[in-house]
């Protein structure tokens, strides 16, 4: 190891001489920040410019003419407006339904011992490890048989599949992280198990459950492939509509619609930023 570090020091003196320049090392984080900001925000800024561009030809840095005409085009298109409505209907429904089905299971995974517990918990990974296209072909057949094709509940069900992993794993990690002695103390002073759950466990778990709900909502809101197969032509959601706009309309139309599609999730970003950094996501993935 000392040979390695000696070699590294030698190289630092040669090829990487600038590493020993203090100003370089101090400015490195700022350079990293600038690079990452350009990489992450650049595409989004370019999108925003396109949404307000009346005329924009290469090689101008800004559009030659700003205009709101593409916003009129988007809002004047009835199928675009209805796709917004469907997305705002399905994604919250999916999230709530997923919570109802998955949260009791997550609590059981965290608190009870039963045969096959670990295997069952792991099995939910398969919902996200099978490439969806391969599944959807046979799912379409199944949905025809169940008369779920082109129905609201069919779309809800197909989107629900993509939320199971988040709604089970993240809350399982959260519930497991809660000290049992708090629950036991409540039981000792005579609280029923339901009262203990709703007054002690649930409030403590709430931030982790919100993170799970957030991931589930985003997964449902973002889902396009399954929704396209099951929902079209009756239920076209925003991401599905976006495929049509990107492939068939002038660039600014896609840009305007992109901004509309991003608004609901950006509201969530502002609400949830603090919660996300508290480790609930990783706790769910460490099993």
């Amino acid at each position, binding site marked *: 190891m000392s040979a390695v*570090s000696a070699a590294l020091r030698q190289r630092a003196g040669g090829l990487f001489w600038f590493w020993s320049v203090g100003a370089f090392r101090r400015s490195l984080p700022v350079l990293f920040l600038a690079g990452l900001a350009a990489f992450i925000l650049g*595409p989004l800024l*370019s999108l925003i410019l396109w949404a307000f561009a009346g005329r924009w030809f290469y090689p101008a840095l800004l559009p030659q003419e700003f205009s709101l005409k593409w916003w009129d085009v988007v809002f004047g298109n009835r199928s675009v407006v209805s796709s917004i409505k469907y997305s705002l209907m399905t994604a919250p429904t999916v999230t709530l339904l997923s919570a109802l089905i998955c949260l009791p299971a997550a609590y059981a995974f965290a608190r009870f011992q*039963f045969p096959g517990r670990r295997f069952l918990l792991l099995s939910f990974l398969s919902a996200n490890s099978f490439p969806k296209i391969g*599944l959807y*072909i046979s799912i379409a057949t199944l949905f025809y048989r169940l008369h779920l094709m082109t129905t609201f509940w069919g779309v809800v069900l197909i989107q629900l599949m993509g939320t199971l992993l988040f709604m089970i794993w993240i809350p399982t990690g959260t519930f497991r992280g809660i000290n049992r002695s708090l629950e036991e103390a409540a039981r000792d002073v005579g609280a029923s198990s339901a009262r203990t759950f709703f007054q002690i466990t649930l409030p403590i778990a709430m931030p982790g459950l919100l993170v799970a709900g957030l991931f589930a909502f985003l997964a449902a809101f973002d889902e*396009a*492939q399954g929704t396209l197969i099951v929902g079209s032509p009756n239920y076209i959601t925003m991401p599905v509509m976006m495929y049509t706009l990107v492939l068939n309309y002038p660039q600014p139309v896609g840009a305007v619609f992109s901004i509309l599609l991003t608004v609901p999730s950006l509201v969530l970003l502002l609400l949830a930023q603090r919660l996300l950094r508290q480790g609930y996501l*990783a706790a769910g993935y460490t099993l």
Partner: protein
Amino acid sequence: MTGLALVLPPFFLLVFFILVPAAEAVLDTLRVERGGQIVYSLVRYAEMLRTISLRRSVVFTILVTLASVGVTFALAYALALYLRFSKGWVSTLLGALFIIPLFIPTVIASFAMVTFLEHHGYVATLLHTIGVEDTPSLVFNATGIVLTEVWASIPFATLVLLAGLQGIDDALIDSARDVGAGALRTFLAVVLPLNTVATVITMSLLFIGILGSFTIPYLVGGNAPQMMSVVMTNYFTNYLRPDISVALAALSFVIAALAGAAYVGGVSHRERGAV
């Protein structure tokens, strides 16, 4: 047994809407009619592996996925280290920045990347302004896919790695520094080994996610070679060969399952060690 009862509803959904359809689809690719009889055979898989464009697509998919995982992992690790060990305005801004792609739907991310990277896109315009004319082709090829996958994967990777780093006791790092270890040595000898679980989770789940992604390679990828998910869709809708499409999907399951096994192995190892 109460536990089992509570777990069964989502498990039945999983079995009924994912596992059974998957098994049915794969079984169907094995059934072949021979002399008026249905027999089980691997002929479709043999045909798939004989087709040069499909073989190239498999190799291309694995390479693009590995490259995306590698770049995302390196960037996310640097970010997580900085967020864990530095305070100040740079850290605060980085913390606000890295999470943004999580909230941008994948379709939008791909479209935004196209407007950013395309021929005469924003990057080309900026380069033209400073006098660079020969912009390399950044989109509708492997580079475009990797850049967009990295863009979209940074938040998840950083969140998991950061949580792992936050679990490392400051005292361990201080003691390494006290005995004279430099930053690099502390990282290699203390931080990296203590963060193995987060590393395994990040790498394997990134691999599975990127391998199966469709939207990004569909909108940002080129005409040939294409990623397996795009080829599957083409075989299904354009070439009317759903059997080959499902056979490719099955092959993709197998590759994803290997990453899944690595994940289970890495995470269980820790659990045995802890107990």
